[in-house]
């Protein structure tokens, strides 16, 4: 306990140096801006900046990336409430009530409860992260390669098959990501795989090109094709930001409940903040003394989901930092950022890069405060950002997207690959294939293969190692249950319907 406190204090010493504080401010500002802008998300922003930040020291760069990750959560609520275009699935629940409040002239309190709720949930979650991380690290140090492999399989299955509307389409995207991850030179044997003698493919497919292609180019193609002639209805930011006494009384229990729902969901590799936000929405609707207001702008319906969103996005950092397992697209890109510096997140990170990782955690405390300061008084400024016309917005996005992809290797070939992934992203968006599993597969796939082969090397090729070790066995059993149980339930429901 004291050890954790000391580590955290030295982390604050790192995060509060002027240069790191500056990176933090840049990160949260940029993050808020991209969160506000429809069509740009944190995953895309970090991906675009990856090649450009290799010359910055890792602590500063990662503090900035964490700020972007965080800031985007805050900024996203502004867009959702005023524009009713949830930028990501985790904001859909907020849109239900938030936009209704804005339509009734209560945009101010809606934005305020979202920002303050995010601050409360974010701060509590960072404390939980601080307390939980050392415990998970202790546990993870005992993990064998077989256990790691089982954990990664669990993450793959939850992200691809359990979430999302269609299991088969989620798995298809995952395996396309895994296949892309195999391209290049095999680290263990030096064997070339799927490179077809193309020199550019020997280094493998870069996550920057894939993520920017799917998120930026794919989105731009889709937006141009299907949405470019739609006029968006921007709600006016009128009236005061102040929440009434009644608003406060109704908001704070929702914030706390949402934190309790969101954080655990983030920490288990179940990816995404979508489920906890909807759970929080449903909980608030059930517990509310004014259930009739839901659907017409109930403040609890904004306070809860926004807080849950933030809590779960902090929770995601627990498996990312302590186990090296990303459970969302943004987390996968953050993992790639670590790898860019030759750092592998995982339990050892807390020993070998203690000042970096604790500096990063301390920066989250600071980031939450910065964001509250940045968001409430400056809300008018962020609303202005929303009025950028779509043609310029997407023009700008693609300038930065191509810049990011090009500056990887100063190669125009990467721009061709970028466009191909853009077409893929368009098709995935149009026909309902989730994007995150592809990015996670590309990043986590090679790590999973390494652990798999390491486990088999230790066991001298005996595959039973995965089911005889208790941790690995239980994780694999849990994974199997995740697939089989919903399937059985569906089967039973269908049979029940058939019976008279």
């Amino acid at each position, binding site marked *: 306990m004291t050890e954790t406190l000391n580590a955290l204090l030295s982390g604050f010493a790192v995060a509060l140096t002027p240069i790191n504080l500056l990176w933090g401010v840049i990160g949260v500002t940029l993050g808020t801006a991209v969160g506000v802008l429809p069509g740009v998300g944190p995953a895309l922003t970090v991906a675009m900046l990856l090649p450009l930040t290799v010359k910055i020291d890792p602590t500063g760069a990662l503090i900035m990336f964490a700020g972007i990750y965080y800031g985007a959560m805050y900024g996203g609520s502004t867009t959702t409430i005023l524009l009713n275009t949830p930028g990501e699935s985790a904001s859909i629940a907020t849109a239900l009530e938030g936009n209704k409040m804005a339509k009734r002239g209560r945009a101010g309190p809606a934005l305020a409860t979202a920002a303050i709720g995010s601050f409360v949930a974010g701060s509590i979650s960072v404390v939980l992260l601080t307390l939980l991380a050392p415990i998970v690290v202790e546990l993870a140090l005992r993990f064998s390669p077989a256990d790691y492999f089982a954990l990664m399989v669990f993450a793959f299955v939850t992200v691809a098959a359990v979430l999302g509307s*269609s299991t088969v389409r989620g798995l298809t995207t995952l395996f396309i990501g*895994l296949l892309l991850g195999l391209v290049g030179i095999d680290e263990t*044997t030096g064997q070339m795989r799927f490179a077809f003698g193309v020199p550019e493919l020997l280094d493998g497919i870069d996550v920057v090109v894939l993520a920017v292609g799917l998120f930026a180019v794919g989105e731009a*193609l889709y*937006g*141009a094709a*299907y949405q470019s002639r739609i006029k968006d209805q921007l709600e006016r930011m009128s009236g005061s930001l102040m929440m009434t006494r009644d608003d406060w009384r109704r908001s704070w229990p929702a914030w706390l409940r949402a934190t309790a729902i969101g954080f655990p969901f983030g920490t288990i590799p179940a990816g995404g903040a979508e489920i906890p936000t909807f759970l929080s929405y449903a909980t608030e609707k059930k517990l509310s003394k004014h259930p009739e207001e839901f659907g017409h702008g109930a403040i609890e319906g904004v306070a809860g989901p926004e807080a849950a969103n933030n809590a779960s996005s902090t929770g995601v950092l627990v498996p990312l930092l302590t186990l090296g397992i990303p459970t969302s697209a943004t987390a996968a890109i953050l993992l790639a950022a670590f790898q860019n510096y030759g750092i592998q997140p995982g339990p050892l990170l807390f020993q070998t890069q203690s000042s970096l990782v604790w500096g990063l955690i301390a920066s989250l405390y600071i980031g939450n405060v910065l964001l509250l300061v940045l968001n409430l008084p400056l809300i008018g400024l962020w609303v202005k950002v929303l009025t950028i016309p779509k*043609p310029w917005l997407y023009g700008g996005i693609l*300038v930065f997207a191509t*810049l990011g992809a090009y500056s990887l290797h100063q190669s125009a070939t990467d721009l061709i690959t970028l466009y191909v992934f853009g077409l893929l992203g368009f098709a995935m968006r149009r026909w309902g294939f989730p994007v995150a599993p592809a990015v996670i597969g590309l990043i986590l796939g090679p790590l999973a293969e390494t652990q798999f082969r390491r486990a088999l090397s230790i066991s001298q090729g005996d595959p039973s190692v995965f089911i005889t070790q208790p941790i690995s066995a239980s994780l694999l059993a849990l994974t199997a249950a995740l697939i089989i149980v919903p399937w059985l339930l569906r089967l039973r429901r269908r049979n029940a319907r058939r019976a008279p």
Partner: protein
Amino acid sequence: MARAAGARAELALSLGVLALGLFALTTALNLPSAGGYSGIGPNAIPVAVSGALVALGAWLLVEVFTGGWRARISDDPLERGEHAFNTPAFAWVSVGLLAQMVLIHRAGFVLAAAVVFTCVARGFGSARPARDAMIGLVLGLVVFLFFVKFLNVGLPAGWLAPVLGGAGI
């Protein structure tokens, strides 16, 4: 009508996944299988992954012929709150990106950025290309100077090299 076109697209995509899987599988089967202590070689995971893709392609195909993909996205744009596929818009964005590939090493980053900005803006319905080009040019210039001077990231100066001096590569 919309459904028939949707079913065709689903069929094409399912066959695409199947073909990708089969192609990857034949490639993977030609990889060496020798593998030291672990008993598995560099081909094991590629075979497993491409095998899975074949199976998923087949699964998608089965769904096509048993009532269409499950939980599919509506084929009617209006139902999705969108408008019908706008071919010129899609084409303008594509043209911008393709032009940039061609231009970036010849004309340089700044001019290529102006072109991609203008084309994409056109795709999103802007009717004033001259104004867009000016904005794109300024944006490209600012980004160029920031990254080259401040972050030391090399970007090609191209035709503007005489103006930009030794700033680029």
